[in-house]
């Protein structure tokens, strides 16, 4: 983890994922954020975050551990897991991010769930990409966007996720640019 350029985004799978699939996510992220991306597993296991009563994993604890492990303050890390995540006040979450912080996580657990129609692999991977870009957006200080097609829109259901695009709206793009500028990173066009 020493040769990492400044302002990188690390994609950290927890568990085993197809390398092709991780590459696809990395590519989509790079397109939006214009930063160097890299796939590296930083956390071997997340047993420490397991809650026996709820049989779920407490995502905030995972975010803290991830942020500790990333030495560079200018980089971000996105973890991907297939276990069900929660925060204490809520029954479950699709993902969580440190607002303006270093780490975020998404869970594929509920994204695999079928809606009215059986979801194809294509649809499922699109959902994962959307959630990944969304949670990373929070680490760049972006908040939820009222624009329904914007990737920063908060989705209450899988149907909503399918409905939104893989892009940021004009407003969110400008706010992202501002934040990248503040951090001294190269700003994508």
């Amino acid at each position, binding site marked *: 983890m020493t040769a990492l350029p400044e302002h990188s985004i690390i994609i950290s799978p927890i568990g085993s994922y197809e390398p092709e699939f991780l590459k696809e996510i990395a590519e989509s992220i790079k397109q939006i954020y214009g930063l160097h991306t890299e796939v590296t597993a930083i956390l071997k296991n997340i047993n420490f975050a397991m809650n026996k009563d709820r049989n779920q994993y407490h995502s*905030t604890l995972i975010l803290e551990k991830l942020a500790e492990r990333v030495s560079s303050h200018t980089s971000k890390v996105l973890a991907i897991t297939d276990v069900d995540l*929660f*925060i*204490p*006040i*809520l*029954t*479950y*979450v699709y993902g*969580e*991010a440190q*607002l303006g912080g270093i780490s975020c996580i998404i869970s594929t657990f509920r994204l695999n769930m079928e809606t009215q129609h059986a979801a194809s692999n294509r649809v499922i991977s699109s959902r994962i990409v959307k959630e990944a870009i969304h949670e990373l957006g*929070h680490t760049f*200080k972006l*908040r*939820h966007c009222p624009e329904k097609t914007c990737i920063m829109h*908060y989705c*209450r*259901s899988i149907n909503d996720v399918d409905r939104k695009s893989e892009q940021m709206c*004009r*407003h969110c793009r*400008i*706010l992202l640019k*501002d934040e990248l500028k503040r951090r001294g990173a190269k700003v994508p066009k």
Partner: protein
Amino acid sequence: MTGTKILIVDDELIMRESLSAWLARDGHAVTTAQNGEEALEKIKQTRFDIFLVDIKMEGMSGLDVLKHIKEDDPEPAVVMITAFGSVPTAIEAMKNGAYDYLLKPFDPAELGVLIEKIIAHQAQARENLFLKEQIKETIRFESMIGQSNPMQNVFALIMDVAPTDSTVLITGETGTGKGLAAKAIHTNSPRCDGPFVIVNCGAIPEHLMESELFGHQKGAFTDAKETKKGRLELAHGGTLFLDEIGEISMRMQIDLLRVLEDRIFYRVGGTQPIEADFRVITATNRDLSDAIKKEAFREDLYYRLNVIEIQMPTLRERKEDIPLLAKHFLHRFSQDINKSIDQIDRGAMDEMMLYEWPGNVRELENAIERAVVVGKSRNVLPEDLPFYCKVDPDIPLSNSLKEIEKNHISRILKENDWNIAKSSKILDIDRSTLYSKIKKYNILKSN
């Protein structure tokens, strides 16, 4: 209007943290308190829109907190957070004015729906108020008055900038006449025959702002039955005055900046670019450089708006203008209601000269209006003034301004059963100022 203000009251750290982080990502301004006492302390500083209160807490119970919040101000929504065993208490809380309750852990969608419902509810109320205020706004508008040095300087500056097309930022406390200054610039400019269009950014609910400014195309959203011109378009050939500019959301700041740069915009739902030629004047009582530091106001927009700054003096900085202003208002109001009150008693004038006028000229205007209504003689007497307090023969007479202010505040509070929202409205100061004065003077409820 940057985000809904939410206060979470819960004695469990982990619940406070997870809930506040969740709501922050939604763009809300979240504050937390670990018990009822801390919550009551917090409402003295800030007016919250929504409270999320845990029912079971050490010390003051959730029900007590609810009671205090509602006493202080009945408007904000209070949502009770309950565990499985305390549902009956939650139902009791609903009878006592709670908006709803949530059983923890909540379903994320359920929380989202509830918060959204409350915000829509409050936006509707704000919209109604806004429509009412709009009517009032047009009635009160007249020339600026003042012979004092600070006002003479303002006049000189206005005459200097009026003929140019420069963007002007007018700063100053509430009630100092920022709107009048903007109007004066317009009237003395080459655009004086064009329209003078006012947008009160603090009064227009966020969800209406975009269509108010830019207009909308028929069918752009459910309520858009007709195509409507926005205020930018209406300001064509004249001046656009954006009052309380510090209150606009980040999104609107982005849109506004783009308009100022390109001079081109689109109606909501429209595809045709619209060009409008207007001069921009803005005003604020907020410290915008502080807002920039907190990333609540865009720096690039600030530099666009603040080409020339005019700072309006407070009334206490120009007390020599008080007699002139008071007589002017007296003349107007006595004519308005056809009552022959034409003099200000010497004692009343002394009281006015001693008073601090936190609400500035507007407060003076209101005071005179009230005096004309309640006055029983040809003269305005000290006791006709809202801040005057009768001297109790048992209390040694004090001439200090502080003493007068303390007595006045105590009286208003007592008259209004210590309802802070009501009292601060009557005193024409904000709640935090009132609270700090109560603390400073150690005014007690039992007095």
